[in-house]
């Protein structure tokens, strides 16, 4: 009887440990550039599209960010903001567009994107525009853009 109880408790603790282990990891939408990766909170986006963007006139901005083009998705036109332009890095070879849920624009990233789980305890502070933290070469993108 006691053995049963102990075994049940052991299983419970083991399960709790597993759950804690799972919960400690967070998922990121990751876009790969040749020498670095950029991860974003996946809940920021409704979908990632492989499509061709229409060009945008020079000098057009969306909430202070340079607008690089326009895409159409499910009844709406979204201005696109290029991650490479924001960071001053090489443009992507295969661009994809991550359509934001509530921010009103699509972020041009390097495709194809993937979902990766990372341990937030491993984050380190970083001094880079539009990035909040990093794990090795993986930078956590910061889209807090309401000027």
């Amino acid at each position, binding site marked *: 009887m006691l053995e049963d109880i102990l075994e049940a408790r052991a299983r419970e603790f083991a399960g709790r440990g597993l759950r804690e282990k799972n919960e400690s990891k967070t998922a990121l939408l990751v876009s790969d550039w040749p020498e670095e990766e950029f991860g974003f909170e996946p809940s920021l986006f409704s979908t990632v599209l492989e499509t061709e963007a229409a*060009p945008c*006139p020079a000098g057009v901005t969306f909430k202070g960010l340079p607008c690089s083009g*326009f895409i*159409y998705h499910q009844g709406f*036109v979204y201005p696109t903001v290029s991650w490479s332009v924001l960071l*001053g890095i090489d443009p992507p070879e295969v661009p994809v567009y991550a359509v934001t849920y509530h921010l009103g624009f699509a972020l041009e990233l390097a495709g194809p994107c993937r979902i990766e789980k990372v341990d937030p305890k491993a984050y380190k502070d970083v001094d880079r*525009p539009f990035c909040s933290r990093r794990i090795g070469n993986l930078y956590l993108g910061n889209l807090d*853009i309401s*000027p």
Partner: protein
Amino acid sequence: MKASQEQSLESLFFEEAAGRVQNLLESFETFRATGEGKDAILRLLHTLKGSAGMVGFQDEAQKIHLLEERFASADHTDLDGMKELERALKEMISELQPDRVSAEDVTAMAVRKAPFSLAQRLLASVSKFETLLDHWRSARQTGAATKDLRIKTEMAFGSELEELRKHSFRLAFGHPGDLFAGLEELVRVVAAAERKSVRLQCRANANYLLREFIPEFRSALVHLLSNSVVHGLETPEQRKAAGKDPVGVIEVMVEAESNRLTLLVSDDGRGVDLKALEARYSSEAQGLDWSQLSDQERMNLLFQQGTTLSRNTSVHAGRGVGLSAVKETAERFGGEVVFERRERGSRIRFTVPSPFFVMDCLLVECGGNRLACLAGSIERVEELGEKELPSLCSVLNLGDNSPDPPRFVLWTDAHRKNGVSVEKCVGLKELVVYPLPQLEGLPEAVVGLSDFGQGRQLAVDLSRLREAGSKRPSSRPRKERSEVARNVLVVDDSETTRTILVDVLRRAGFHVVEAQDGLEALERLDEGKFKLVVSDLEMPNMNGLEFLEKMRDASSPHASLPFLLFTSRDDTRSFQKAYLLGADRCLSKAAFQEADFLDLVEELL
């Protein structure tokens, strides 16, 4: 009116009536229980009355009018009176059922009906898709998916998709004619009752209208036209005395733009009697100081429930309900309605936003971009020849990557020599145009995104080019390889940074001029011709953002000069602020790589 058109109008009326009856009953219950909702009942009855009159159901219109009269003076605490009103309301509702059409009519309608309705055709297309997919799956599983079969399947899918697209299009859009149908009859009936002589002119600049707009807009038009005939236009005798044509004119215009639809109802009548409006408001002690109101505010009073300048109430107008119902319709669609006074007569502008439009567009190629120009904004197209006109892509601040010279001119006003050049005219297409969101610096002429084939193109209204409100007024010219094209201004208070940048740029063949801060940079700009500015952010006297703001001022001759912010203060907010002020690129000093920097400079030139 043709018999088939009458039939379709009647069906439309019954359909509309069925939709409003439920609201009417609900409003009645609210009124009986609480005393509120009388305005809603009056609006619904007024709308129904107008629609009934428009399809020629004059008896029904008269009955609704009488019911309206009774509701106007109804008291919800009078239980007997309410019972009587309920009975009258239900009787009126029962008369608005389509079973008033006789059995013979129904047979005749069935004969006239097309063999397949649009919905049936859509379902048939979907079913064909499913069958095709099934065939394809089984062929793939049995290994029979040969190249021949693949091609055949692809073709079958393609043709069925075209059918589906066609049917969906018909389901989504109606013609302006559907909106105008029956209006002439309405005007004739109201004018006869008012002993007036009226000519109605209806025009539209759109080929299609969203179907969901049509019934609501028709109701609004019924009110607006009745209002114009009854209140706006004079009798033939009065018009003659005023030196006008005895026949009054009402013009209905539907103007479709990429993001909004406007209904304009104009008449050449006597306009609004402002003295009567003032007297009405003064007598009703509305708490409004008439002298403090602007002209537009005074006009807006006309859209308030219960406002009427008419001394008598007729079956067609005079209760002060029609215009408030129109306002309610406009607001329900997120739009507005405005009364405009004109030199002769008045005009009502009813505007609602639209999620997309179908427009005739001329597809052109310019600077390596494909653009869809609204055909209505082009006066004519001809070969460019020796004429010198700005290219469309440069006027719109779009990049120019085309090696081809411009060959055609699109005239917006040939007489005044207003036009732009393009490299190629691809053809005229009917395209769906989706409006763009509000963006800072977007030229006003860029009105939407069009949908054609595999790609999407910016839709351009050339008639707005003259008033294009680009934040950066002038355009970037084609790439030149002259001396001027290599002139770069480097602005930094750090001598080390300046030395490094100057060295890198000079080795790459650029001619470089230096400045220590924003103030000096402004002076250097006025002294020479530059193609690019590379500037630090933190500087004494005038920092990089202040300098950028001055440069981007609309009156500055350097407003369109490319600007690269090169800073060690590489936080998000600084970059955002710079972009907001019109920086083309922001680069962190920490991320400096000579090759990347030069690539960026070349790109900006």
